[in-house]
């Protein structure tokens, strides 16, 4: 699918959550949900921008935990009706999805995938991060969804506690016949801190292992590697697989929106750019110094600047910011030499 005319919104439309995960980028969970009329105002701002830019929106709805919200399905229906929205994902912990929800989800024809967070391939690890019983509930949700032929992706957040468990995670993904998996590095913000963060060498080992595993896999799941650092797993300078490596869309074709309308470059890059309800998207997108800095690759610092893999990487600006305080610094978890 041509993505040159697509814009991605990760919309955390509520902060409430039934879990308290150790690494969550959110620290507060008690905010009241936005009134549904206000939620629709946010949606309309998104649609207005897409119309003006002649682009199409891919939206991930998340929280908090989206399935605790009574607004989830009305919002899904509203977005589903709009021609500018071409794809909707839901990012969830998977602990609250019921058979009744499945029936309603089946009616959302633009629903692309349900992404369930699974931070371990075993209950021991996953529950240590997310709370007792969370693994079993997540697995049940995966089976419910796949049983009804709804696409499922799994998200594994790589951190110290689960750094030896990622192969088990891939085993689970294969066994449960999920469609795609993402393994993303933890960003030390919110409840997470530097103690959770893996070293560059540890990341290298993990990414290399996963690459070898991916090369042996012929069927599902797809391992999503069109992201920063993955290009470095190729042993030479020849980029033979278009699905490996990718420049992060932050500042270019992506934004995150929080429960109160605050807009961030990315959920993990916690630099507020404005509020979509007060400022509108145009002012934020056109006038933010942060976004203009990120857009200019020449502003990258350290070994990211001039890196031979820059076109397919650029590092993670959120990780750089969380660890160094400078979002244009080199990615601290990159293992490439100068």
């Amino acid at each position, binding site marked *: 699918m041509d993505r040159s005319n697509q814009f991605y919104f990760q919309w955390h439309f509520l902060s409430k959550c039934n879990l308290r995960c150790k690494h969550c980028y959110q620290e507060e969970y008690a905010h009241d949900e936005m009134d549904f009329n206000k939620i629709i105002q946010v949606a309309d701002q998104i649609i*207005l*921008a897409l119309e*003006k*830019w002649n682009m199409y929106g891919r939206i991930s709805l998340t929280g908090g935990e989206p399935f605790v919200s009574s607004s989830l399905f009305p919002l899904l229906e509203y977005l589903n009706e709009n021609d500018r929205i071409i794809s909707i994902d839901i990012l969830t912990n998977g602990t609250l999805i019921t058979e009744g929800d499945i029936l309603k989800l089946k009616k959302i024809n633009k629903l692309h995938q349900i992404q369930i967070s699974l931070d371990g391939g075993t209950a021991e690890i996953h529950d240590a991060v997310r709370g007792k019983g969370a693994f079993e509930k997540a697995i049940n949700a995966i089976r419910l969804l796949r049983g009804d032929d709804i696409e499922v992706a799994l998200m594994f957040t790589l951190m110290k506690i689960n750094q030896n468990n990622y192969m088990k995670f891939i085993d689970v993904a294969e066994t449960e016949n999920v469609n795609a998996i993402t393994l993303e590095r933890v960003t030390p913000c919110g409840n997470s801190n530097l103690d959770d963060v893996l070293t560059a060498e540890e990341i290298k080992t993990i990414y290399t292992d996963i690459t070898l595993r991916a090369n042996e896999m012929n069927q599902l799941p797809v391992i999503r590697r069109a992201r920063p650092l993955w290009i470095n797993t190729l042993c030479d300078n020849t980029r033979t697989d278009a699905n490996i490596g990718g420049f992060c869309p932050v500042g270019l074709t992506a934004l995150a929106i929080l429960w109160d309308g605050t807009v961030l470059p990315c959920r993990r890059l916690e630099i507020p750019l404005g509020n979509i309800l007060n400022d*509108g*998207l*145009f*002012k934020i997108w*056109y*006038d933010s110094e942060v976004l*203009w800095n990120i*857009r*200019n690759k*020449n502003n990258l610092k350290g070994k990211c600047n001039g890196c031979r893999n820059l076109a397919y990487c650029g590092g993670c600006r959120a990780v750089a910011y969380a660890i160094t305080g400078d979002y244009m610094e080199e990615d601290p978890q990159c293992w490439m030499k100068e």
Partner: protein
Amino acid sequence: MLDERIVLMLDENVVLRSINDKFWALDTRLGAQYKLNRVSFDILSCLDGKKTVSEVVNDASQLYNVSFDIFFDDACGLLKDAVEKKLVMEVKL
């Protein structure tokens, strides 16, 4: 033709931005975006709400080391177009 004695300024909702060799005028209220070339960008950047059109053209012509007379018609055409698109407004002194 634009009156060279008037004073122009960017609309308060319009910002000028550039990355490397790409230039834009962006309307932060209505969302319109206009791609510019470097000369247009430099001319619009000279608008400060104090200088007359004639003074702005003079400043911009010096950036490119061309004579005022050669530069004038093109620059005025650009500014007239910018006024019509409401990127630029006249300052009433």
